[in-house]
């Protein structure tokens, strides 16, 4: 299979500040590739290098076998880009903004463009400054998708979108994959990547720590559970449940990490006089810290 994105020992630093460090990455054409990492890990830096919005300090990046610094316009022609942080033109309406970017591409399929706008339930007649954050995100999504690009580079695409629109967005990505197009999805949300991607790369402090099938994420999905009972309970009952770890017993309270399905823990707790149940999905930073510690991890 051909490669859509390839980086070779790609390094970008901002003076003494670290951006990304010796990144070796390959994204095949036709796959949805998740790019996961906590805020500040270097995801946006990678994307900006791929689109030649910034230049690498060393190493190189290729998109469709074109070196990013050699012919960025040829890359942009085949790419749809949704930045993580952006703003558009307050004086233009949403429709004018969408059509402006369509015109910069020499025009797009008007029927397809209209269908995208309608599926997002976006009112194109309103001025951009009047839109809510979610509607602004919709405008940018249409701009990224409207020319049916071979590669979609999406940086935190669901930010500000309501759940229904997020569902619609995931169908767009699935459709893109069916058409043989490639999606490079940068996110800090495990759930978002888990439900839509084929493979995932995990980035931490500018370095790749893991590149694997998305199923590997399940190992990272750990819930922090706190059970409060009216009286003492045998901790061993819970320690024996598969997936339970870091079990701590304090008075009538049990705290634990649960990896995988949480139902066995709930069933076990129901056998006692349960007063309160708290389950929290840890942040990506907490997961990474628990999984990888602070040390540098070799790329698989």
């Amino acid at each position, binding site marked *: 299979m051909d490669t859509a994105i390839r980086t070779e020992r790609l390094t970008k630093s901002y003076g003494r500040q670290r951006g990304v460090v010796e990144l070796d990455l390959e994204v095949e054409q036709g796959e949805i590739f998740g790019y996961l990492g906590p805020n500040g890990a270097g995801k946006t830096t990678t994307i900006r290098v791929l*689109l030649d*919005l910034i230049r690498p300090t060393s190493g190189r990046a290729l998109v469709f076998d074109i070196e990013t610094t050699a012919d960025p316009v040829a890359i942009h022609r085949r790419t749809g880009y949704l930045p993580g*942080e952006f*703003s558009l033109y307050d004086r233009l309406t949403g429709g*004018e903004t969408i*059509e402006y970017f*369509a015109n*910069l591409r020499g025009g797009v399929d008007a029927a397809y463009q209209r269908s995208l706008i309608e599926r997002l339930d976006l*009112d194109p007649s309103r001025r951009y400054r009047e839109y809510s954050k979610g509607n602004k995100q919709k405008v*940018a999504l249409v701009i990224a998708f409207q020319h049916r690009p071979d590669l979609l580079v999406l940086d935190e695409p669901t930010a500000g979108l309501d759940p229904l629109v997020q569902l619609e967005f995931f169908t767009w990505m699935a459709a893109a994959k069916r058409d043989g197009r490639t999606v490079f999805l940068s996110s800090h949300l495990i759930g978002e990547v888990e439900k839509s991607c084929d493979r995932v790369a995990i980035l931490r402090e500018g370095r790749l720590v893991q590149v694997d099938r998305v199923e590997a994420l399940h190992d990272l999905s750990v819930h922090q559970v706190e059970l409060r009972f009216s009286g003492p309970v045998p901790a061993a009952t819970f320690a024996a449940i598969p997936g339970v770890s870091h079990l701590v017993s304090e008075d009538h309270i049990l705290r634990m990490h649960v990896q995988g399905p949480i139902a066995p823990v709930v069933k076990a707790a129901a056998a006692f006089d349960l007063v309160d149940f708290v389950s929290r999905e840890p942040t990506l930073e907490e997961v990474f810290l628990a999984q990888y510690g602070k040390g540098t991890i070799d790329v698989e």
Partner: protein
Amino acid sequence: MSSSLLPLPRRAAHRQAAWPLHGPRSIFTKGLRDSRRSILLAGLGMGFLTLLLGMILSLQFPTAADRQQIVAEMRMLPAAISGLLGEPINIDRLGGFMSWRYGNFMPIMFGIWSVLALSGTLAGEARGGSLEVLAGAPVSRRRIALEKIAVHVVALVGAVTVIALGAWLSGQAFATIPADAIAIGDALAHFAGVALFGLVGGALAFGLGPILGRAAAGGIALATLGDAPEGRLGVGADAAAAPLRPAPGRRPRSRRLPSRPPVRCVPAPSFHFR
């Protein structure tokens, strides 16, 4: 009643009106659209000023003798004051008077306009975040920069044309001595030169804007305007021989000049730096 006869809800009707979508066709046309108000205001404002100056001179100093009186008064001013006002060259004729009154501030005005327009055009987009989306479009950086500069150049050309027309019209309408007439070509060349100066500061602000931010780049560029050239309308290279030549085919207005010797004009280069 058939449902097809019911009017669309207001919001839905508004949405329908948005189709087909219309948007700017290029970075250049979008820039023109964004700047149309400032182009119109700058052009008409400064054009009106030129007309006003012509009217003031013709009303207050209609004769060559009156004009000589201004020249004499200006020569008597202390050097510090006359330096502040600018060197009074050929102020006994409309073109020279206009340049003298304009000479001090018009290059600065063009400079400030250019600095504000060009420092904001890229730095503003970078700060706002739209440059990130624009730079992702299949348009080279060079083209983005050139189209944005082209917008301002067109704006300057428009403003220069309106101001030059104002100066020419002023000469047509308010001339009271033969040398008051202003050739349109001279006026265009003069104001184009002034505008070009403004473009120097603007270019500096444009280049530094995305790196230093709009405020810092604008500040540096504005500091360069301190050396503004002082233009003199109608006193070009050939002006020494034919000071403030009347426009071709133009007959001076019928106001009779007093039977005095013709006004002696001070030749000067078209632009000189203080």
